């Protein structure tokens, strides 16, 4: 096993754990954290393929992925705070109507 394939396996595992968290947990905060984990897995795959090909475009992908994760965290937490103010809960199953 080369380091690259180990990193690829790790990224797949991170992505799978994040997907499981998104699917299983109903607390919005934990769902958001699992989403971060999935993005992180994708970033790790970017870095691994960049190392494999000796190409810095993969690192550009990592940087873009990091910014997407940061933006997603900011907006997602804003939405969660607004929802909590509205319904006093962070349970995903309770947000089942579009209009307030």
């Amino acid at each position: 096993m080369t380091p690259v394939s180990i990193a690829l396996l790790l990224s797949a595992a991170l992505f799978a754990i994040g997907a499981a968290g998104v699917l299983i947990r109903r607390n919005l905060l934990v769902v958001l954290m699992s989403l971060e984990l999935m993005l992180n897995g994708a970033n790790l795959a970017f870095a691994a393929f960049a190392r494999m090909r000796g190409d810095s475009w993969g690192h550009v992908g990592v940087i873009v992925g990091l910014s997407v994760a940061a933006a997603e965290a900011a907006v997602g937490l804003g939405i969660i705070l607004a929802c909590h103010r509205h319904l006093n809960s962070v349970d995903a199953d309770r947000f089942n109507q579009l209009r307030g």
Partner: protein
Amino acid sequence: MASRHPIRSALWLVLSLTASAVCYLLLSASFAAAAQVVVYVGAIVVLVTFAIMLLKLKGDALDRRGRAPVAVAVGIGAGLLAALASAMKAVPATGTAAEGFGTVKEMGRTLMGPALLPFELTSLLLVAAMVAAVVLGRKKEA
């Protein structure tokens, strides 16, 4: 992910993100590792922790979980593993990295040269996210 309380999940998230920063270092991506530590561990986890503490979670809201989606999640993970394995066969491994690969200098050259467009799009995305976060976080005027 398996922890019951979100703050424990956040602390585990810190651990796993730091570990993957170390993986970036092992993949000779030092700039990406530094950005990972600063952005994820420094910013995102702090935001998450603040949100958890602001929300004052009640005991019953902590968590419920189902059984059925576990199979779906395991399926997704297995499929992804298979796809990545076949991709590894498709891409030829070039072996050792070039001199200075992944350093800040090299990254700056790439970001300011051929990769200028994604870089600028990223800054646009960050501005949009900042505005959206401010608008969402504002208390509603009656």
